């Protein structure tokens, strides 16, 4: 009972502020609504007993990535009063496509509840104590089974860091 109250609370915040983020004209407002969405998602992670992801979502997304976004929005001059939606027809096409994809995926999820034994809408969660010391389990998996992907991710981050510096660097002669 309490579980579903927490879920609906955070899910409502996430969806409403995501919708606001896509529709606000001012880029800073969009960024702040995206931060609200990310925080609500972090709450859903906590409700799913993923403590480490909860805290890394807040530190990495809200504390790192979104600060970067807000820096760039501040650096780039955006106070020109231009219409933010590209065109009327494009908006309707986007809504139509989103509706079609949403209907399709929704019908699939809805039908999947009838799959015998492993339906998606029946509450057959693994016992709550199976994932209990979460950060410990995560570390074991990350540095054991998934060591190679972990190292590849570190190479990816290095490449992205060098790439970002090269991109944003001022060309002295070109």
């Amino acid at each position: 009972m309490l579980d579903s109250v927490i879920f609906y609370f955070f899910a409502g915040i996430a969806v409403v502020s995501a919708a606001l983020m896509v529709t606000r004209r001012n880029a800073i407002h969009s960024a702040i609504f995206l931060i609200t969405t990310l925080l609500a998602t972090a709450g859903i992670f906590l409700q799913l007993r993923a403590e480490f992801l909860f805290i890394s979502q807040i530190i990495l997304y809200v504390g790192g990535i979104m600060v970067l976004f807000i820096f760039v929005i501040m650096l780039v001059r955006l106070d020109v009063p231009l219409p933010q939606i590209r065109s009327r027809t494009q908006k309707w096409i986007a809504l139509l496509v989103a509706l079609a994809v949403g209907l399709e995926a929704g019908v699939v999820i809805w039908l999947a509840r009838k799959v015998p034994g492993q339906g998606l809408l029946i509450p057959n969660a693994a016992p709550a104590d199976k994932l209990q010391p979460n950060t410990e389990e995560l570390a074991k998996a990350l540095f054991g089974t998934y060591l190679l992907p972990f190292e590849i991710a570190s190479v990816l981050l290095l490449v992205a860091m060098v790439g970002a510096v090269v991109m944003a660097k001022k060309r002295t002669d070109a």
Partner: protein
Amino acid sequence: MPIGHYLFLSLALFLIGAIGVITRRNVIIVLMSIELILNAVNINLVAFSRYFGDVAGQVFALFIIADAAAEAAVGLGIIIAFFRNRETVLADEMDLLKW
């Protein structure tokens, strides 16, 4: 909580992000919508991780967060470089390669 609820939440966030990518002119907001899409995927992964009692989904979600950070850094670097050259961040004015 049945897992279908998480899937529908993730679907909703994904679609809102997709609408943002298609309709917005400001490239920075397009990038933010992509972050929203990645985040929607993470909800799916963590929900399945909880429901199968397997930590692999959470590890994958961590990789996706790292990926999103890399994408944001490079993407914003490109936007800064482009703004320095063309004084705009609007998607329909980025037509250098169009003919």
